């Protein structure tokens, strides 16, 4: 009887999801969150035993949600599509604070010193900067261009020197916001960088900011060591002469997929991954793949690159060998593969399979499925190692 009531108490604890306000004494270096986009919740997961620890609910519309971490890796900041910014305590599995900061937002970044969290917004277009502790508004940067219109903002990243860098989809501009005086950001504008930048990344050393262009071929490159030299076009006309396919999902540029002095980026409107030589910024290869790439992610050791694809080819994942530049494996996790996240040293990778309501874990040496966890329409997977990576 006693045993039974104990069991019952345990069950209560479990179903309340958050261990009823109790916080666990543990490290957070092996933790992460999985976005459950339909139910507006996240699952906190751990990668040592590959288990789900808890679920935190009430986070609003999480389509296209992304996450950054506090430098102590205890707090996750979740950026929702509905303009929500939520701060989650991983140790206590609890929503600390949630604000609605705009009508429609797309992503965010945390500053070099960890004191500021910035959000990029579609409507009204611009960037808002918040105190990472309190989520109080510190600065508002409207993305105003021609005739007072406001542009949607994408590709927001942090950069060394307490700066944020971002791109304006409608205006075709890149802006640097220097936040050394947080209440009075100093803006540097680069105009006419190309039509419709759709996303951007910064190299891990924080030197190069690169925006992908949707409205034309090529990418826009800004050297943050030498902003005075302006923005340069690279990979110009990579699609020349080829028939572009309709794009059913915008590719993502996340992290810098580099191996052996070469970088790997998705081609827009082509079934190809482009290979860039980092010494010359020239295209040196083009790898035919199964669909239009969405995420192109290097295993942390750089030996392999894993790729997922846009609708209607989103049921597969391909693995590219970075030496031979060939596809060496094709996996079929199921419809709606939305994201892939490597564990800190890359021996396993987590893959979200939206339409099967599953998250899968693969061994990256054998490419075998080692674990499946239930999740409600999972999309992004974000692990705490991101806390110490510039641009993530």
């Amino acid at each position, binding site marked *: 009887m006693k045993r039974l009531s104990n069991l019952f108490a345990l069950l209560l604890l479990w179903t309340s999801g958050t261990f009823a306000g109790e916080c666990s004494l543990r490290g957070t270096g092996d933790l992460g969150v999985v976005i459950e986009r339909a139910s507006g919740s996240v699952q906190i997961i751990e990668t040592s035993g590959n288990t789900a620890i808890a679920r935190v609910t009430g986070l609003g*519309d999480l389509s296209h949600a992304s996450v950054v971490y506090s430098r102590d890796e205890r707090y996750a900041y979740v950026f929702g*599509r*509905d303009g929500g910014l939520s701060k989650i305590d991983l140790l206590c599995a609890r929503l600390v604070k949630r604000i609605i900061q705009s009508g429609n937002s797309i992503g965010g970044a945390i500053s070099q010193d960890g004191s500021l969290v910035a959000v990029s917004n579609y*409507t009204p277009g611009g960037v808002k900067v918040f105190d990472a502790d309190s989520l109080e508004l510190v600065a508002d940067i409207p993305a105003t261009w021609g005739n007072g219109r406001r542009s949607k903002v994408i590709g927001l990243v942090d950069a060394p020197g307490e700066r944020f860098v971002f791109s304006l989809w409608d205006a075709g501009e890149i802006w640097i916001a220097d936040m050394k005086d947080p209440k009075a950001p100093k803006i540097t504008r680069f105009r006419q960088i190309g039509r*419709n930048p759709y996303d951007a990344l910064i190299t891990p050393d924080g030197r190069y900011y690169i925006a992908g262009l949707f409205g034309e071929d090529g990418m826009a490159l800004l050297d943050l060591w030498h902003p005075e030299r302006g923005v340069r076009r690279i990979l110009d006309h990579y699609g020349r002469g080829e028939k572009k396919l*309709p794009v059913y999902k915008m590719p993502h540029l996340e992290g810098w997929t580099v191996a052996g002095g070469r970088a790997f980026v998705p081609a827009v409107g082509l079934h190809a991954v482009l290979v860039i030589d980092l010494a010359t910024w020239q295209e040196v290869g083009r790898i035919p793949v199964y669909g239009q790439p969405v995420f192109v992610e290097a295993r942390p050791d750089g030996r392999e690159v894993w790729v997922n694809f846009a609708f209607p080819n989103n049921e597969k994942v391909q693995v590219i060998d970075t030496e031979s530049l060939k596809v060496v494996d094709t996996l079929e996790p199921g419809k709606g593969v939305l994201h892939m996240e490597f564990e800190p040293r890359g021996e396993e990778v987590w893959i979200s399979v939206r339409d099967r309501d599953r998250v899968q874990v693969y061994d990256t040496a054998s490419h075998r499925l080692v674990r499946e966890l239930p999740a409600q329409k999972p999309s992004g997977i974000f692990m705490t190692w991101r806390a110490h990576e510039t641009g993530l």
Partner: protein
Amino acid sequence: MWRRTFLLAASLALAGLALARDAEVPDSARQVELRNMLLQDCGSCHGLTLKGGLGPALRPENLAGKPREFLFETIRLGRPGTAMPPWGPILKDAEIAWLVDQLVSGKALQEAQR
């Protein structure tokens, strides 16, 4: 200019025909797939709750007053020069007409808010 207007008129007329011809409705299994696609895949640009994103909001109040043929053609052909892709290569006319129905009637929105 004239030519473009003519082409537009012609394609609208054709669309009208297509709408009429494909009075048949996707079966219920297909409807489930289409509904999921509308929220998830269209939603990746128009928002999971159709409130807009890279593409504009698609709630009934946003579409009010826009001819059905116009919406039908927008989905079928996309809008060249913008991020709106053509769905004609993937969806049948009857399926597109059904999607327009779902959007305009507010059924898609109801589904999104469930």
